[in-house]
């Protein structure tokens, strides 16, 4: 196929606006799958996600389509699972020339829609505006078209109005993909450079790389080199997703497919890496895609120490198709051996957490998320710390800088008051208010990441009756009057519970925190003092009372079976906790520390 007839594009949308439905319709219309298969796929989508088969990830499906009498190869590069992850979206976009921005006709633009649109623009992709679900009674396509024009500058009469559900307008949209989106640049004569934009691990075949060929071409048995590490492999199979894996004899410039090269070591493959030809290597790797900076950190400890190797293996797998997730071994006096994990943001952390549980069935104890800080030392050097416990001695610290973000919240005009009050209480500064239409407003804030990292989103969802959406983007570090709060449990400082907070609310936060801990930590056989200290000075104290009476009065022949069961259960409960000295601390206690609600 000549390059002029190849189109690489993605669908980007806020969650539930119809991305998957539209993709299914396209697969059907192009005859890539039958309507029946599409239906099964929708029905099974839950199970499917769980497996590692190919159709599920359908990360880059190749479709054949005829437009104006000519055959086109359309590569739909979808982002797996969680669409509202801008890092995943940007990963897909680096492999595309165009993007379809889908907006629900009944919901309008959401914060995520905006974030996706910005990313597409940054990636240099051509954007087509698509208003979906026009079949709904509640659809307001004209209003949504206005919003799109107002906020994104896409002309309202150029938006496509479709129903992914009924298929209305989808053929016209495919025609537009052929007509309006640009073909890939012709670099077929240049040395091979293929971008790895995703990957997964197959127990039999090793790592399967999902690639977009940017220049040159790939052939079976070719000797390739991964440019990051310089490691070399021989291609054993090359193919395309249609949507199942079909081997091909070549992947030319502009094409999308997969590469299998007997790569056994998970760590060798990084998303964003460039594949080149070992015999005729390209001078430079592709810009790849810039993994955004990790801003949120949390420690994961196996519930049971013997699970440490399994946890490591699980993280290795997760890191394989998520370049922006990192983990390093960590040894905590309180919690034993585990890993400090870095995430792009909170949602990212939740996804990893969920995948860890779902795919690996490992019990973990996780500490509350913290952000990373910059510390200016007295000697003028700057250190990055991603845990309060790493904060150097106070006397050596000149200033502590915390990360700030540009925070966008879209909400309804009648809930704006509540949202603004919450934002102010979290040290957010309002930069701009923009009315999208008479009932919807976009608030633009400058916000300290630490303040929105934990429960902020849940809270604005509550205030706005589920309506508000938000998105944020890191802007830079700024100095603040920050202090470290230490928590002492039974007179022992527990590093995993310490916090860096703004001085203005340090005391209040400390107090709230120990009240939460008092509720979260079960009573013990002895009294447990909980103390808050700032710079060695105790500023608040709570006490967990000791058990006073906990004994079964009667235990004779007929009571033994039942009683042993009860005791075993009590014991299992304890196993899920971590002991610090002689105090057993449950997982929730560690999570309670960033919960600022009452």
């Amino acid at each position, binding site marked *: 196929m000549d390059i002029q007839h190849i189109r690489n594009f993605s669908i980007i949308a806020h969650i539930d606006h119809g991305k998957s439905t539209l993709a299914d319709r396209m697969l059907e219309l192009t005859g890539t799958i039958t309507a029946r298969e599409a239906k099964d796929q929708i029905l099974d989508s839950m199970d499917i996600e769980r497996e590692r088969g190919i159709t599920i990830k359908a990360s880059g499906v190749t479709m054949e389509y005829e437009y104006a009498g000519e055959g086109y190869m359309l590569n739909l590069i979808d982002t797996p699972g969680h669409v509202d992850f801008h890092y995943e979206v940007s990963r897909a976009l680096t492999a595309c020339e165009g993007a379809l921005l889908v907006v629900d006709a009944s919901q309008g633009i959401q914060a995520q829609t905006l974030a996706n649109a910005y990313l597409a623009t940054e990636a240099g992709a051509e954007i087509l505006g698509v208003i979906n679900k026009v079949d709904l009674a509640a659809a307001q396509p004209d209003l949504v078209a206005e919003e799109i024009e107002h906020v994104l500058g896409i002309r309202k009469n150029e938006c496509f109005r479709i129903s992914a559900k009924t298929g209305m307008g989808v053929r016209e949209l495919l025609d537009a993909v052929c007509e309006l989106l640009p073909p890939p640049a012709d670099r077929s004569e240049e040395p091979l450079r293929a971008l790895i934009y995703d990957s997964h691990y197959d127990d039999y075949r090793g790592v399967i790389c999902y690639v977009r060929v940017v220049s040159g071409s790939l052939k079976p048995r070719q000797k390739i080199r991964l440019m990051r590490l310089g490691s070399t492999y021989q291609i054993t199979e090359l193919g395309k997703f249609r949507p199942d894996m079909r081997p091909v004899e070549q992947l030319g410039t502009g094409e999308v497919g997969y590469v299998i090269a007997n790569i056994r070591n998970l760590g060798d493959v990084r998303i964003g890496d460039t594949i080149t030809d070992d015999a005729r290597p390209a001078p430079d790797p592709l810009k790849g895609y810039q993994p955004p900076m990790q801003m949120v950190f949390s420690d994961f400890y196996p519930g049971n120490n013997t699970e440490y190797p399994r946890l490591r293996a699980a993280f290795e797998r997760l890191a394989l198709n998520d370049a922006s997730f990192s983990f390093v071994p960590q040894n905590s006096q309180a919690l034993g051996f585990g890993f400090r994990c870095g995430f792009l943001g909170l949602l990212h952390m939740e996804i990893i957490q969920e995948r860890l549980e779902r795919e690996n069935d490992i019990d973990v104890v996780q500490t509350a998320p913290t952000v990373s800080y910059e510390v200016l030392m007295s000697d003028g050097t700057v250190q990055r710390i991603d845990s309060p416990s790493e904060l150097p001695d106070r006397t050596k610290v000149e200033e502590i800088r915390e990360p700030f973000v540009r925070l966008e919240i879209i909400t309804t005009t009648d809930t704006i008051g509540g949202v603004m009050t919450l934002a102010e209480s979290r040290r957010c500064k309002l930069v701009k208010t923009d009315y999208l239409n008479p009932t919807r407003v976009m608030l633009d804030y400058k916000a300290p990441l630490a303040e929105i990292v934990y429960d902020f989103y849940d809270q604005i969802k509550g205030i706005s009756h589920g309506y508000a959406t938000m998105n944020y983007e890191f802007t830079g570090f700024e100095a603040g009057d920050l202090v470290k709060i230490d928590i002492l449990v039974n007179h022992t400082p527990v590093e995993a519970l310490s916090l860096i907070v703004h001085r203005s609310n340090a005391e209040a936060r400390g107090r709230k925190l120990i009240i939460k801990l008092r509720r979260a930590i079960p009573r013990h056989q*002895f009294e447990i003092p909980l103390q808050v200290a700032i710079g060695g000075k105790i500023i608040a104290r709570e006490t967990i009372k000791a058990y*006073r009476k906990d*004994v079964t009065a009667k235990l004779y022949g*007929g009571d033994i079976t039942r009683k042993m069961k009860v*005791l*075993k259960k009590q014991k299992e409960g304890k196993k899920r906790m971590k002991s610090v000295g002689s105090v057993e601390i449950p997982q929730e206690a560690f999570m309670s520390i960033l919960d600022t609600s009452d």
Partner: protein
Amino acid sequence: MVGDCALTVEPAGLYVHVPFCRSKCRYCGFYSVPTAGWDGTGVPSRISPRLGAPPNAMHRVWEPYTGRLVAAMLRELDRYEGVQFRTAYVGGGSPTALPPEQLLGLARRIAERLEQVEEFTVECNPGQVDAELLADLRRAGVNRLSFGAQSFRAAELELLGRRHTVEEIGRAVELARRAGFDNVGLDLIFAIPDSTLADWQYSVEAAIGLDVQHISAYSLSFEPGTVFDVWRRNGRLAPVDEELDRAMYEWVIDRLGQVGLPQYEISNFARPGFGCRHNLGYWANRPYVGIGPGAASYWQGDRVTHDSNMEWYMAAVESGQKIPGAVERLGWEDRICETAVLSLRTRAGIDLAAFEHKTGCDLLRTFAATIRRYCDLGLMEITGCAVRLTEQALPIADSILCDFAALE
């Protein structure tokens, strides 16, 4: 299996569960069927403890039914032909709710099975005994009586739904002595809603005054399905404060110790040498056979609990079939843990040599970390050849025992 043989040569206990009471006490979670107000035509329905005709009038009505049950229990006992029991305990329910001839018949047949009898106890309701019955029981081979006194405060007996009076307790103990019993025990309950430390002290002193050999002191628990449980949930009753419960407990341990009835188990106190041997068998995790509906056995490595259903029980025994119930085969780990948990309830604690002999493992190694931690906290101590809870640990024993309920 080797382990099983080892178990069966250990001295075994026999427990017989008589599942009848005159009426149901409000706090009682045991399986027993109230006979008061019952017309004898079928399994009695739940009735108010206040209802019912005078006891003797009732006998005639349900005699055939209880007789059939006693016969069934004896047939079940026959299934253990050749087994030597060292201790026997007839409990319930209220054995004394049976017509005297039936209770005596039962006692005599049990006595036949106890060639080297160490201890043969019958639980008695203080309001349901007379000189003749006690003398007959003594003659039948019974050598220990346990009276459910519960309290010496009339108001408390009333609240608990007990059908006897304070005076009847004293009288029953006196009759027992005259019938030749030199090993008599009383059960008491503390932490009764609304009662004070002084109320409790009064009852304990009254019990001491009766000069018995054994006292059990139980903290009241709200068992599911009891009247008290319902009353607590609907707010009519409130459990006493945890601190008061603890104070009552600590006081009784002290006081009975002073008068020569030292504590030998969480809830049990006795003159030296008068600890209940049958019950000590449970805490040493020795085998026992439980006869009757709702009864539990630990036999040949299995924990078996008969269903609490008289009709099923009788039908199964009469037709020579397996008695419906739950069977749990204990594994190696269960045996270790149960032995540890049960033994720790006694003041003597876990005898290290006996433990190793029984389970084949070294306690101090098996539970090394747990024992060390609790020793450091002053909640356990290693005394020569045993490991035991300290006095301080007794009121909160379950929070410690649970760490022995599964291996480390």
